[in-house]
């Protein structure tokens, strides 16, 4: 049980908690927070799990990947927040209201003449 395992497990826990929140929480901002946290969870795993154990050697490749990942996460979060605000301005609610997989046809399309 080295510190690396601790962080790797923390990464797994954060990832799964966040995934659970994204799937179950309905509020858009929590979903965006969740996606961001999933990213950090993977970064934790990426830096902790593959590292060489006995002399703790910092592996620059995952560090490069994590840095790129953080910047990409910022970009994705900015757009997700922007779009969430757009949804709130268009539909007035911070939830994804329109049911996507309505087995019945497009709710807005007018009734066909019987």
């Amino acid at each position: 049980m080295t510190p690396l395992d601790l962080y790797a497990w923390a990464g797994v826990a954060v990832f799964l908690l966040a995934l659970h929140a994204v799937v179950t929480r309905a509020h858009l901002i929590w979903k965006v927070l969740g996606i961001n946290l999933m990213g950090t969870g993977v970064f934790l795993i990426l830096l902790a799990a593959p590292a060489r154990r006995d002399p703790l050697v910092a592996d620059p490749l995952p560090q490069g990947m994590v840095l790129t990942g953080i910047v990409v996460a910022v970009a994705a979060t900015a757009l997700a927040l922007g779009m969430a605000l757009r949804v709130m301005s268009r539909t007035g609610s911070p939830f994804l209201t329109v049911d996507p997989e309505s087995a019945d046809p497009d709710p807005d399309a007018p009734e066909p003449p019987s």
Partner: protein
Amino acid sequence: MSGPTDPQANNATGAASETGTGVDHAHVRPLLEDDGSRDGPAILTWMVGLLLVPAGVLLALGLRGAADSRDPRIPDLIAEHLPETGVSNPVTGVLLNFRGYDTLLEVAVLVAAMVAVWSLDRGQRVFGLPAGRARDEPVLAAVLRLAVPTAFLTAVYLTWLGSSEPAGAFQAGALLAGAGVLLTVARVMRPPTAAALPVRIIAAGGVAGFVVVGIAVLPFTGAFLAYPEGWAYPLILGLEAALAVAVAVILVELFVDVPSIPAPDSTLDTVDPTGDPLGRALAPDATPPDPGAP
């Protein structure tokens, strides 16, 4: 610009349309809070939870297994080839030499996010504290005078340091962005909106610089972004500088251009849902057919 009162009183949040006098937080709840009423049945939440927990345990054990014998060969390879990259910081070596293409795409992601946010809403002409209050806020003025110059100085230093010590363009860019937002909020700097051409040039400068350098070296070294002998360090430094400025401008853009609620062109909310996706009227004076078409 409309103040806090919003023209649409009848939307789903039932926001009280009276001005913000005696504010009761009743109507605040829908946006700023989430009591989980819309979260779907609890049984579903538990099922998803039950599904994820064993997966987590298996994953953790999997990561733990064979952990001791892990002996990645990449660190030694990087240490061995680092001198050829022209920088001594291995992470900067990875980011700007070994995997320069990744960093190029990463800045392209930032540009994509910026353009996407621009496409969401009309550019804000006004951002920041009300004009009157910005001037007479003593604390803000003091912070500005102290923070902004140091931020700029540190950013330059971080960019320069990146080649040898753990620092680099992105960290510098973030600092610059922080300073930029402070200036804009304090109304010292006009918010850089989508229309301004200099904004576009600097923002696109990061990616453009990378691609131009990459193509320029192609005939000499036979590969995209393979720095010729001796040129690695100066080119990397140049690219880092361009990256820092570009990242800073893009991040400030992402702050300023966040869509406001209600959208200024909210009149379109009443657009016919099954009509033209762009809300264009079909009126006879509709956009004339393309002059080019036969």
